[in-house]
């Protein structure tokens, strides 16, 4: 056999199996990831789309208005039944109705059905009869739904302005005055100013309560609804696609910018977004210096003996400790130990109510910093090990001391690795919920931990967190069914927040990297 014959193919080459298997696993992973994101995106974002309201007439003559949610086959094969969201908890006691499909005689979408978002009792679905001052007698005369609707929208806009004015007054006048009085209780001037401002708020509140709506459910129950408890009104059946898109955008914006209502089962998640981002940033600030210094010590300073190897193994294994264990540690050491001692020393006046001796932003950040410390140490150490020795020797040969060599040559070269560690730490910390439940996250923290009061950043306050918010909304509301879309929307938001945090760190790494042109040798 000649060499030429030897290298010719004697049998068909089959590199198929391995390559297909590998490609298949990648495809499957991508499919699952895409499916996950698609599910939470559709279920979460779909919630804000104004669904049309159906007026359902049943065989037995009953009438019902609601938004169709889903349809399931009946268990014994007796046809199908459909779930409607009917709202009106104050009238019906519940907000859901399962209706057998074959009992539905007719289904229409009349344009005059309104959906009102209310502060109490959830949504109202039905007809608007009139907009009246509170004291008028019931006059079931000629109703003018179109006129009433126009009037309602005008009043809602006024109400929005009034609410904003009241909030501004409270924030800029009443709270500072109250603080001044706390420090100086005999200040007559401040007391008078405070009373005047409070009176104005009372007057405004009364004005807001002045108007009531006369509402009627499709079943014929008529009642009065104070206007100030109405947050938003819409007539989904009368909306064009453009208007629906506008309403959707507004809904998403309110979800992002407002605080939660009704025991987290409605409203927005702004405090949770803020709490998550603030906690992660504090955690990064705490973990980076500690992790980097530890890695420098292990890799550059310590004698590379058995003890160092042991420490290194221990650090890597710490990364595998379940996060709830860190939570328990944080509760025992940070909250009860250090926090309790701080309270004894500095906040004795307010005991027995704790200041730092209870879960809070600082302790949560510290606990997560501890949790992510191994990640930062390992990543930084790997970066340090990649720096060639001749760089270090080059600096020493120029008369640099060890410290100068480390700070001027090794540290700048290790920055990308450090930032990689921080990226990994952020990704891990932003998604952690279990330890936070022990050391400072709250179901509802109406005040975000940053405000205009000294010292501006309140490390002792409890805070809200998107991850915990998902858990709380999904399991602890009175109506889990109604809160489910919010769970998906919050989960989607959590993913997006982590993505943004990571992109920031990656951008930072790229920026630092390109400044030193870290490409060659």
């Amino acid at each position, binding site marked *: 056999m000649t060499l030429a014959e030897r290298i010719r193919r004697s049998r068909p080459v089959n590199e198929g199996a391995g390559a297909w298997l590998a490609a298949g696993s990648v495809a499957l992973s991508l499919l699952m990831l895409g499916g996950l994101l698609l599910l939470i995106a559709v279920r979460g974002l779909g919630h804000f789309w104004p669904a049309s309201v159906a007026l359902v007439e049943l065989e037995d003559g009953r009438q019902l208005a609601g938004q169709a949610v889903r349809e399931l086959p009946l268990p014994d094969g007796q046809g199908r039944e459909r779930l409607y969201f009917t709202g009106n908890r104050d009238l019906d006691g519940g907000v859901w109705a399962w209706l057998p499909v074959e009992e539905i005689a007719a289904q229409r979408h009349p344009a005059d059905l309104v959906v009102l978002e209310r502060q109490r009792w959830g949504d109202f679905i039905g007809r608007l009869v009139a907009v009246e001052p509170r004291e008028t007698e019931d006059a079931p005369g000629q109703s003018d739904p179109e006129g009433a609707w126009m009037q309602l929208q005008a009043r809602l806009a006024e109400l929005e302005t009034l609410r904003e004015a009241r909030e501004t007054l409270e924030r800029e006048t009443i709270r500072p005055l109250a603080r001044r009085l706390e420090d100086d209780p005999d200040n007559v001037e401040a007391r008078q100013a405070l009373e005047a401002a409070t009176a104005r708020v009372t007057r405004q509140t009364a004005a807001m309560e002045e108007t009531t709506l006369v509402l009627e459910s499709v079943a014929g129950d008529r009642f009065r609804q104070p206007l100030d408890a109405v947050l938003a009104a819409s007539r989904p059946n009368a909306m064009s696609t453009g208007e629906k898109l506008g309403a959707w955008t507004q809904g998403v914006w309110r979800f992002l910018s407002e605080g939660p209502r009704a025991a987290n089962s409605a409203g927005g998640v702004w405090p949770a977004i803020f709490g998550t981002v603030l906690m992660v940033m504090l955690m990064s600030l705490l973990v980076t210096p500690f992790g980097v210094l530890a890695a420098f010590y292990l890799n550059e300073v310590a004698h590379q003996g058995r003890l160092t190897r042991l420490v290194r193994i221990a650090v890597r294994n710490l990364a595998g400790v379940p996060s709830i264990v860190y939570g328990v540690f944080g509760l025992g050491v940070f909250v009860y130990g250090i926090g309790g001692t701080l309270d004894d020393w500095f906040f004795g006046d307010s005991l027995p109510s704790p200041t730092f001796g209870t879960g809070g932003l600082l302790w949560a950040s510290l606990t997560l910093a501890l949790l992510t410390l191994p990640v930062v140490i390992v990543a930084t150490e790997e970066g340090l090990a990649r720096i060639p020795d001749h760089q270090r020797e*080059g600096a*020493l*040969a*120029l008369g640099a001391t060890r410290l100068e060599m480390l700070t001027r040559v090794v540290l700048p070269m290790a920055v990308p690795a450090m930032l990689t560690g921080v990226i990994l730490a952020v990704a891990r910390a932003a998604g952690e919920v279990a330890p936070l439940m022990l050391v400072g996250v709250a179901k509802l923290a109406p005040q975000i931990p940053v405000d205009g009061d000294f010292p501006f950043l309140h490390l002792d306050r409890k805070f809200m967190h998107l991850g915990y918010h998902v858990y709380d909304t999904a399991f602890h509301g009175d109506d889990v069914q109604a809160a489910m879309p919010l769970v998906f929307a919050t989960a989607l938001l959590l993913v997006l927040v982590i993505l943004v945090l990571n992109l920031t760190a990656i951008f930072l790494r790229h920026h630092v990297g390109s400044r030193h042109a870290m490409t060659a040798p």
Partner: protein
Amino acid sequence: MGIEGMVNPPVIDFPREASCFDIAGLSLAYGDTPALEGLTLRVPRHRVTAFIGPSGCGKSTLLRALNRLHDLDETVTQRGTIRFEGQDIHAPEVAVDELRRQVGMVFQMPNPFPMSIYDNVAFGLRLQGGLTRRQRDDVVEWALGAAALWDEVKDRLGDSAWSLSGGQQQRLVIARTLAVKPSVLLLDEPASALDPISTLKIEDLIRSLKGQLTLVLVTHNMQQAARVSDYTAFLQQGRLVEYAPTDTLFTNPRLAHTENYITGRIA
């Protein structure tokens, strides 16, 4: 004849006043592996001295002992003395960073720092401090000129040093070392990673520097040693075999062993 049998290797001697380094009975081991054994020689001031020998003969180890770079390696044990201008470099009163400033070193792999060309040359100056910006600029220009690099980089001093070619990087490293005004320059196979033209430039540079500096060159390229050095020491298995003026060693070696090596009969 094995070199183990030689008791008194033929060496030339310089008067103590003319020698820059005075090495006496130097033995060095990495852990249990001996690298140098009982080395005694003097390195003349303001001359180029080359260490040649096969791979693993200890020539680089000897060079790194001269500015105490072995201090970093905890496994190294060392006996004997090295005097630099009469001062024992291991004496407790010696400041190692000041020693290394006086005894500059250029490595086999060009190792510019990941910063601009200017910052690389100014690195040692900034460590010392005490210069105005203007003075520092002048020293940087002088050092780049002395390393024959100024004309090539004067318009792009702010560029990353890693954007230079290998030969330019090596001359940049030499400029960086010259900037701190050392009295000795140790060169550890400075041209072995470079192309022939860059090598010639480095060799020209070595020749132009020897009036002001003591240069010690480690090389495995015997033609290079013959071209640039004034004195050559031949090392094998951690011992000094022969040390003579370069002309003598290459044309008329006293030992057959040396002759075999430089004529390429042993590796």
